[in-house]
């Protein structure tokens, strides 16, 4: 029972970590909470569903299409809703409102055009189970854990070794100074949103397969925000640790206490953590910019 819960928790935590990393990536460079991220995840899931069910492409191509689609949407979101604010050096409050507007717009656009129906992915992966030593784990969960870690590791490798990755890290440290040193900020930020969107596409696919595809599924990113705050906003390793920790803790609470208090628990954890450790586990000290 204990190990089973732990494994299930890790599988959920892997998806949380994936979302939290995408969210933290944007936060680390622009310093605001991208509330539109959940809607991008939702649209990624819809794209994947459409490709798989209507166009009949194989699963791997559908995942690829969902990644590409979500990445482009995320980039478009930045260009339309944030870039003018960035050029004007607007306070992060404006970014947040703009992001919230985008989120409301996209979610309800899907409501108005596609409808509020729940779509279920075909049960290809969910049916199969692995079991070893009395612990059984769904094929989908294994796939989610493995794929999440490959994606996060790939991102890490990209950030550490590529020229663009170095530019992103420099810009997240100090945007103005890196600009003076020849970093093209508009392009770098474009890359950040593309990468975050790609992660949104993957997590959207997994969420859609695990639960269902519906317009408000993006609200699950609330958990990603909490995970990112636990790990320290803007810190990528923090986001991974926060995501896994939150996934495991939540699963334990719903297994041993009750599944009803799960969400209340996560939000209380957030508030308590903010009071005790305002910068999270791995966060650097961030003052509101004066």
């Amino acid at each position, binding site marked *: 029972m204990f190990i089973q819960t732990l494994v299930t928790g890790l599988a959920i935590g892997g998806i949380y970590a994936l979302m939290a990393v995408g969210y933290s990536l944007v936060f680390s460079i622009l310093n*605001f*909470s991208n509330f539109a991220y959940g809607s991008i995840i939702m649209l990624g899931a819809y794209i994947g569903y459409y490709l798989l069910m209507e166009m009949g492409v194989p699963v791997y191509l559908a995942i690829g299409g969902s990644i590409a689609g979500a990445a482009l949407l995320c980039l478009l979101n930045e260009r*339309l*809703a944030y870039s*003018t*604010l960035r050029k*004007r050096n*607007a306070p*992060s*409050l*404006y970014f*947040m*409102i*703009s992001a*919230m*507007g*985008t*989120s*409301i*717009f*996209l*979610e*309800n*656009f899907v*409501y*108005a055009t596609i409808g509020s129906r729940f779509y279920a992915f075909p049960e290809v992966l969910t049916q199969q189970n692995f079991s070893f030593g009395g612990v059984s784990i769904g094929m989908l969960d294994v796939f989610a854990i493995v794929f999440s870690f490959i994606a996060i590791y790939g991102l890490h490798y990209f950030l550490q070794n590529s020229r663009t990755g170095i530019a992103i890290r420099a810009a997240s440290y100090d945007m103005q100074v890196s600009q003076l040193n020849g970093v093209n900020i508009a392009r770098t930020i474009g890359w950040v949103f593309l990468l975050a969107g790609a992660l949104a596409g993957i997590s959207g696919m997994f969420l859609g397969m695990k639960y269902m595809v519906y317009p408000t599924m993006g*609200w699950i990113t*609330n958990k990603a*925000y*909490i995970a990112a*705050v636990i790990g320290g*906003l803007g810190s990528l390793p923090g986001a991974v640790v926060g995501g896994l920790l939150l996934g495991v803790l939540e699963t334990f609470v719903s297994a041993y206490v009750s599944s*009803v208090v799960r*969400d*209340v628990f*996560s*939000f*209380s954890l*957030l*508030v308590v953590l*903010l*009071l005790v450790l*305002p910068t999270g586990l791995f966060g650097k000290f*961030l003052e*509101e910019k*004066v």
Partner: protein
Amino acid sequence: MAEYISGVITFSLIYVIATVGLAVFTGFTGLFSLGHAAFFAVGAYTASILTYFYDVNYYLALVAGMAMAAVVGTIIGYPTLRAKLRSDYFAIATLGFGEAVRVLLENLEITQGARGLPGIANETTLTVVVIATILVIWVARNFVYSRYGRAAIAVREDFVAAEMMGINLFQVRMRSLLFSAMTAGLAGGLFAHYVSFIQPGMFTAYLSTQLTASVVAGGMGSITGPVVAAVLFVAIPEALRVASMWRLVAYGFLLVAIMVFRPQGLFGYKEISLHSFRRLFRKEVS
């Protein structure tokens, strides 16, 4: 038809009451609450449980709803404001708080869970709402022009400088949070006794965002701007019933467009008064 129009007016004014409260908080301290639906819900539930199960007088129940919202406001406000959270953290904390309250309402015995409370006494009339709106706007206006309001404006503009001038940041923020929680609670009580049915699903984060949207669209730092925006946001989609599906699409679009093209909101920091009309008129004459 007359009944329908008075219904639309009543609804708009209930939203105006909640929006004015939020305008005092978000617009005058610069903190961004995404959990105001929780105060609305607490006011609605407290007032209707009192009239529904305990036959308490309607007006007394409204006041109790306000008081309860203030208590809940203290519970969330005291730790978060004391810790001086960054505005993002505060927004996420209030978002989480709003959802937590909704989950609690869905699982409490006395609120009858997700089934909600049907058949609440239909007590709220247009007259009551009009009087309440005038009172709330009047109090908000006085609050803003008092020394507390000026302290709040100083905090919004630059809280570090304000703190150095000896303004107690926590006190200013707490006071306006309590004011806005109480007005949201009042709006909730009025709402419950107007539609005579409430359930937790009515008080989701959407409601919070709608309220915030009105404040932002109307202009942060203005009282009359958000009032106009709230009326527009409720009355227009109500009149164009067909557009109801697209209403929130338009909200979202408007929010982004306002931030990109007119970040100060429709009315900016200005108030609409007879004086401004007079000035407009004078300009035309000369």
